[in-house]
């Protein structure tokens, strides 16, 4: 027997052989019965030094285990680390669930949008108009984009965004009508009517046409 090989075997028995050499020697050890017998004797020496009483060397334990293992199926070529799979499943499942929920929500939103296109256009129209009184240039730009006439159209549902409740506004107008000028009164009443019609919009339905204040002014000039 090669002395260097035996020296490696002794070091491997003590877990003191470098990993690369261990790999090579393990391969040889698993096939070389003479080397395996020496390996077994090293174990006997250790057990004797440690005075491991109760061990019967003639019991044939290793041989019985080997015989039992020989009837066992060969293990898979690649080990399947079960805990790792469980770990992978543990983070994958919530992510998949969240993705599924998000997907359903996205489809629902798209479906709702496709079912009520006027809501979309209404929002697109009302958003720029909400700032229209503030900046004339912004209004012009918006109209240029939408291609609509330069007129003030009060949508039915914009009143939902009004801060002042319409009832209070009406009470205010009625209470101060004597003291206000006709022009101011008219403007307030117009705003009131617009807010009232906007408040009533949800119950009347979104398909109700919007009211054109400019047209209304044309019909009822003062």
């Amino acid at each position, binding site marked *: 027997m090669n002395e260097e090989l035996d020296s490696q075997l002794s070091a491997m028995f003590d877990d003191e052989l470098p990993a690369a050499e261990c790999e090579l020697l*393990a391969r040889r050890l698993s096939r070389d019965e003479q080397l395996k017998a020496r390996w077994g004797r090293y174990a*006997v020496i250790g057990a004797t030094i440690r005075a491991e009483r109760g061990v019967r060397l003639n019991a044939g334990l290793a041989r019985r285990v080997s015989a039992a293992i020989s009837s066992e199926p060969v293990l898979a070529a690649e080990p399947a680390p079960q805990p790792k799979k469980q770990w992978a499943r543990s983070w994958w499942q919530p992510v998949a669930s969240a993705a599924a929920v998000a997907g359903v929500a996205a489809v629902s939103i798209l479906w709702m949008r496709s079912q009520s296109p006027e809501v979309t256009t209404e929002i697109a129209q009302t958003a720029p108009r909400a700032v229209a009184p503030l900046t004339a240039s912004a209004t012009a730009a918006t109209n240029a984009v939408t291609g609509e006439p330069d007129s003030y159209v009060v949508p039915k549902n914009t009143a939902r965004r009004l801060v002042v409740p319409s009832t209070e506004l009406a009470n205010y107008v009625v209470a101060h009508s004597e003291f206000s000028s006709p022009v101011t009164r008219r403007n307030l009443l117009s705003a009131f009517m617009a807010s009232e019609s906007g408040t009533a919009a949800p119950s009347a339905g979104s398909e109700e046409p919007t009211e054109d204040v400019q047209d209304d002014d044309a019909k009822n000039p003062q």
Partner: protein
Amino acid sequence: MSADISDLSLVRRVQRGDKGAFDALVLKYQHKLVKLVMRYVRNPAEAEDIAQEAFIKAYRALPQFRGDSAFYTWLYRIAINTAKNAVVSRDRSPIEYDLDRNNTDESYDMQGRMKDAETPEGLVLTDEIRSTVNAAIDALPEDLRTAIVLRELEGLSYEEIAAAMDCPVGTVRSRIFRAREAIDRRLREVFEGGLGRVEELG
């Protein structure tokens, strides 16, 4: 040196389908495992049966072993559980020879096994092997004997032994190897000399 590297290399081979590598693991740990199991059962024959069962269970479970702990630690747990289960199932089953005194053959066998547990010949390494190993150790030069005893009895690593003996690690490796070779040479003589009752060395 990373601990358990040699066991791990053998384990990986078994996991790839090399059953021969498992024999090496059994040869290495069978004595430790039987000693461990004998904490739970006093009968050495029963301890060997339990150790055998533990090894087979370990083989079957080896695909799940990832090497997070040392192989022997993992095997240790399997053996402990197997021993505990064996004790529980044995306690649930009443010993028949106590109940059925007419069955003389069976009661004799059980008494024989119990008696065997108390007989040194049935429990320990054969006297001849033990005396041979002990004589070989005594005959070793002091540095070799110290190295092998520190390794096997105290479980020190080569680095720790090197520090204790104030010598390089390579020297420790060489000393331990030469000590083993000297003992093994005497041991082989005993076996080849016709120790018929020793069927195998491990």
